[in-house]
């Protein structure tokens, strides 16, 4: 770039784009300027005064976090004056600070400790009485200990700017100024815990984590949240085979530091007391614990029998199991059981979208695209509740790049607040309403359409036609429900489609048809709960269930295998935008096995293992990469915890889309299907209890 500004910091000649802040320029050059209130991506405060630097020809010290570089500027961060200023500010900061590091959750990873260690004085001159305020609980997950607060306003900003919630503010002034929640004595908000996470000190602490451990006693495992389809990377803090904390402070992954309440806290279902720990088998009409070998043998015997006599199988897969498990399951169903009666709960019409796009590989938006695109149109979805990360991305795009956001929904949504046009439509009239936005949309240089489950079948085709008619680069996101809803479609967990959306060419039953088929001999359910609110017509069918809990479906089973949760196994999942990411085992749950292993052991028990191949996650993933179109993603990216987008279709989809089967569960922030019922956190928060 020609118009770079030249300046020096500590004698080093540097260049940066005009408008770059001195603190950022220094950081890029590897020069640390200490800061509390400055936080990349959030608005500037200039409040903590830690970042003061000397600038030639300016009489006073300047705050590096508010000062843009200028041509010829000479900055020094290494002078005695700067060192003295840092020391003085830290000395002030500690005057009313309780210094209860020995019992503070933050101890060991506290920015204040680190700052004082590096820049502060070794002793305190303050001999007055400290100002004290008692600790407060604002919600089951958010606690506030005011004396530890350094008033950096990060929490206020992340909640307002980042989350779009604005639940935190400041009350009082001067030394008694205090962060306060929106309802005076308690919070009503998203309960995301972003404020806790971003707090540099131990002022905001998490109800789920506080006083449980010292941070250095934990190991940190980076894996993917198992709740919604957004695919946030979450770093689990593990100690003694227990998950103690979820966060993403290292900003790895597609979500940066973002996590919603589910990603941050709702892993807690994994050690719910109702967790199944041994296989169960129906003995005299009652489910009794049995050994793995007994259960496996019984199921294998039954499967072999039914297969031998040409009986009817029905196989229902999951929206949360890994790609490897889904791939292996469909292979098992099709090759070993010889059936196409294979389905899962479908929540978005990705098939119609892929078909309408004719395999235009570049027309599927990534999570990152939502942060970069000049314009985003949200149709038929309450993103802030149903797809928190996508909402976060779009909001950040609006804040940082002034992206134009359009909304077409039946009800008000959070995106309205910063949209250029928030259009309300009657149910079913989304596309008509969208037409009315055309004059504005044609002026956008590029667009992303994000659409929910009411846009399906013909409507998807019409939407894509509409998009194409704008004559601009257009991308799409077809919203789906769970962590691997997209992967389940990609891996061919439907009667009509094989992995990679190739037509199976064979007829097969859908979920509803399986449940209604009176001649069904075996129903095999892997990580799903189809019998919640439904019944099985085939009274005598042998029901096999793999699950974490004794769900409605499991209660009706003949054999139940206790399965691992996403936090207890390896594998990959594909998020809503088609990005493949890797799960990493964080803990082991006594008595359980990963679904992949259960399926593999069944194959072995039936003597069919050879044709299905080994059931290790890595080996199956290698096969997926080799055989499923679009999944030949770069292995190093996946192995190092990155995300790689798949492009599963290169042309038309030669099978019907079945829009009539598509219905989103519309989980809000505080629910997550059957799994969510076993999360104490989701039940504990006020907002969760209020939500139907």
């Amino acid at each position, binding site marked *: 770039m020609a118009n770079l500004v030249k300046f020096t910091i500590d004698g080093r000649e540097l260049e940066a784009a005009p408008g770059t802040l001195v603190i950022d320029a220094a950081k890029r050059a590897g020069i640390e300027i200490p800061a509390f209130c400055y936080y990349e991506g959030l608005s500037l405060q200039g*409040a903590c*005064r830690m970042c003061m630097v000397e600038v030639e020809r300016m009489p006073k010290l300047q705050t590096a976090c508010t000062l843009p570089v200028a041509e010829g500027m000479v900055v020094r961060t290494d002078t005695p004056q700067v060192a003295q200023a840092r020391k003085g500010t830290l000395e*002030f900061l500690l*005057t009313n600070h309780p210094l209860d590091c020995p019992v503070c959750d933050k101890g060991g990873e506290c920015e204040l400790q680190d700052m004082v260690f590096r820049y502060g004085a070794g002793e305190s001159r303050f001999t007055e009485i400290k100002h004290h305020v008692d600790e407060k609980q604002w919600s089951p997950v958010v606690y506030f200990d005011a004396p530890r607060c350094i*008033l950096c306003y990060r929490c206020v900003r992340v909640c307002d700017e980042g989350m779009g919630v604005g639940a935190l503010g*400041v009350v009082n002034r*001067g030394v008694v*100024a205090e962060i306060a929640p929106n309802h005076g004595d308690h919070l009503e908000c998203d309960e995301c815990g972003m404020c806790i996470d971003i707090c540099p000190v131990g002022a905001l602490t998490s109800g789920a984590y506080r006083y449980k451990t010292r941070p250095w006693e934990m190991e940190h495992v980076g894996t993917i949240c198992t709740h919604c389809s957004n695919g946030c990377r979450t770093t689990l803090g593990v100690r003694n085979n227990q998950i103690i904390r979820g966060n993403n402070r290292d900003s790895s992954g597609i979500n940066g530091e973002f996590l919603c309440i589910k990603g941050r806290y709702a892993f807690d279902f994994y050690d719910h007391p109702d967790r199944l720990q041994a296989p169960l088998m129906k003995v005299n009409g009652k489910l009794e614990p049995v050994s793995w070998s007994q259960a496996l043998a019984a199921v294998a015997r039954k499967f072999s029998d039914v297969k031998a006599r040409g009986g009817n199988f029905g196989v229902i897969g999951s929206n949360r199991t890994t790609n490897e498990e889904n791939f292996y399951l469909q292979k098992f169903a099709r090759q070993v059981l010889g059936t196409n009666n294979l389905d899962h709960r479908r929540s978005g019409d990705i098939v119609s979208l892929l078909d309408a796009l004719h395999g235009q590989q570049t027309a599927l938006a990534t999570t990152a695209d939502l942060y970069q695109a000049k314009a985003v149109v949200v149709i038929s979805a309450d993103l802030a509740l149903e797809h928190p990360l996508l909402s976060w991305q779009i909001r950040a795009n609006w804040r940082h790049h002034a992206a134009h956001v359009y909304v077409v929904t039946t009800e008000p949504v959070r995106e309205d607040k910063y949209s250029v046009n928030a259009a309300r439509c009657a149910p079913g009239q989304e596309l008509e309403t969208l037409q009315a936005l055309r004059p504005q949309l044609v002026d956008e240089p590029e667009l992303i359409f994000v659409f929910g489950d009411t846009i399906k079948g013909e409507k998807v085709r019409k939407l894509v036609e509409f998009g194409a008619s704008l004559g601009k680069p257009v991308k799409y996101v077809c919203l789906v429900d769970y962590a691997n809803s997209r992967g389940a479609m990609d891996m061919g967990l439907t009667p009509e489609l094989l992995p990679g959306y190739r037509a199976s060419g064979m007829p097969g039953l859908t979920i509803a048809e399986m449940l209604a088929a009176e001649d069904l001999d075996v129903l095999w359910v892997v990580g799903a709960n189809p019998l919640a609110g439904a019944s099985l017509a085939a009274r005598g069918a042998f029901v096999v269930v793999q699950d974490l809990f004794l769900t409605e479906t499991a209660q009706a089973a003949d054999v139940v295998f206790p399965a691992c949760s996403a936090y207890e196994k390896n594998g990959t999942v594909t998020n809503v935008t088609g990005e493949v990411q890797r799960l990493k085992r964080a803990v082991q749950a006594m008595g359980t096995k990963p679904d992949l292993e259960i399926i593999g052991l069944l194959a072995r028990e039936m003597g069919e293992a050879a044709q299905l191949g080994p059931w290790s996650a890595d080996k199956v993933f290698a096969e997926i990469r080799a055989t499923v179109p679009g999944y030949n993603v770069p292995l190093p990216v996946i192995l190092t915890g990155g995300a790689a987008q798949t492009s599963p279709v290169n042309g038309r989809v030669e099978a019907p889309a079945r829009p009539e089967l598509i219905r989103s569960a519309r989980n809000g922030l505080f629910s997550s299907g059957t799994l969510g019922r076993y999360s104490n956190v989701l039940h504990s928060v006020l907002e969760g209890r209020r939500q139907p």
Partner: protein
Amino acid sequence: MFASHPPLFSNPPHPREVIMLSKRFRLPNSASIDTFLAHGGYRSFRKALEMTADEIIAEVKTSNLRGRGGAGFPTGLKMGFVPRNSPKPKYIVVNADESEPGTCKDRLLMEYDPHSLLEGMLIAARAIDAKKGYIYIRGEYRYLIHILDRAIEEAYRHGYLGRNILGTGMDFDAYTHSGAGAYECGEESALLESLEGKRGVPRIKPPFPAQVGAFQCPTMLSNVETFCSIPYIVEMGGKAYADLGVEKAGGTKLTCLTGHLNKPGVYELPLGFPVDQLIHDVGGGIPGGRKLKAFIPGGSSCPVLTAKECEGLTMDYDAMAKRGTMLGSGGVVVMDESTDMVKVALRIMRFYQHESCGWCIPCREGTTWLRKMLQRFDEGLGRRHEIAMIGELAKNMLGRTFCALGDAAALPTISIVEKFYDEFERKLNAVSAPVPAPGPFPVLNDPPPLGVGR
């Protein structure tokens, strides 16, 4: 219209006064528009309507008018900074938050001559093409809001406010807005935040209000007295106004004399008035013939001067700067030899720690620490090494806070501890004196306040 209102002053002006801003203070019903019009009111505005915007600004520049809110920034320059051709609306904002201890002049202008403020706003509005003006008044001045609202109502009725003013096509609306009792909301950017309905904490500068002010739009924000001075500049011409004062500081200034004086009060004096005469002539001298010990020239934010430093000093911006202090807002505090300077330091710090908005660390924590420490000193519980520490801590605030309140707390403290070090030493083992409750500024030793409020 107005209930009959006696004049502010029944006595004649002091012969050394130059009566201009205060010219209507001695009239009955001075706040009513009838009185105002009968005594030359809105004449300058009519004259300004014949002038171009550039001409008005040029006159203000020539007048050497400097902001009367404390910082003394040249008002003409500030007006010139407002981007007149910006497509955004432009605003006039009057800083009527008058909270600087020792200062009580804006109050008189608003109470006894509210229309002169409106007239100043109108002229400024014409110069920067503003269509709306806000008068931000400190919450404690609630009764003045009443008076101003009535004046605004009268001005609307007489066609000086509203649409198509005096048939010229000019539109201008004026509003009053109440603060809620925060000194910090007198700081211009905090004032704007508060005006917009937010928490009263300052903004990052630059940009300055002239570019990005009220509601993110170009804004001329000045003190009440500054606006009130503009009509006289237009009336007499910038040159004649400048000639009333000294080089680089034109006109007259309402000076608030408080403290140990026989005749405290508000006096209108030309810039450059000698301090010695201020105390001994205008102020009637120090009661009981006591000697001058310390002098605050313009509100509690200024470094304190010793009697010696006041010798040959004149009341203008540059002369004060040369002695290391500031003319400030015109709130003079005279302290005689009976004054306990530790108590003065404590009283000043108690004010700032109470008023610190809490936004930034050095001010929030520094004022609190210093207040606690000074309190201890006052109770005779200071430690010798801490005398120097008081200055050190204040210096750790100075120039490092987010807004000038931190400096305002640090400067007087540094000056007192450096210039009156021995008084701190003497207090080291003094018997604990009762701590006075927060009261009017300053807290004085026995014998109790002579001269104050007389």
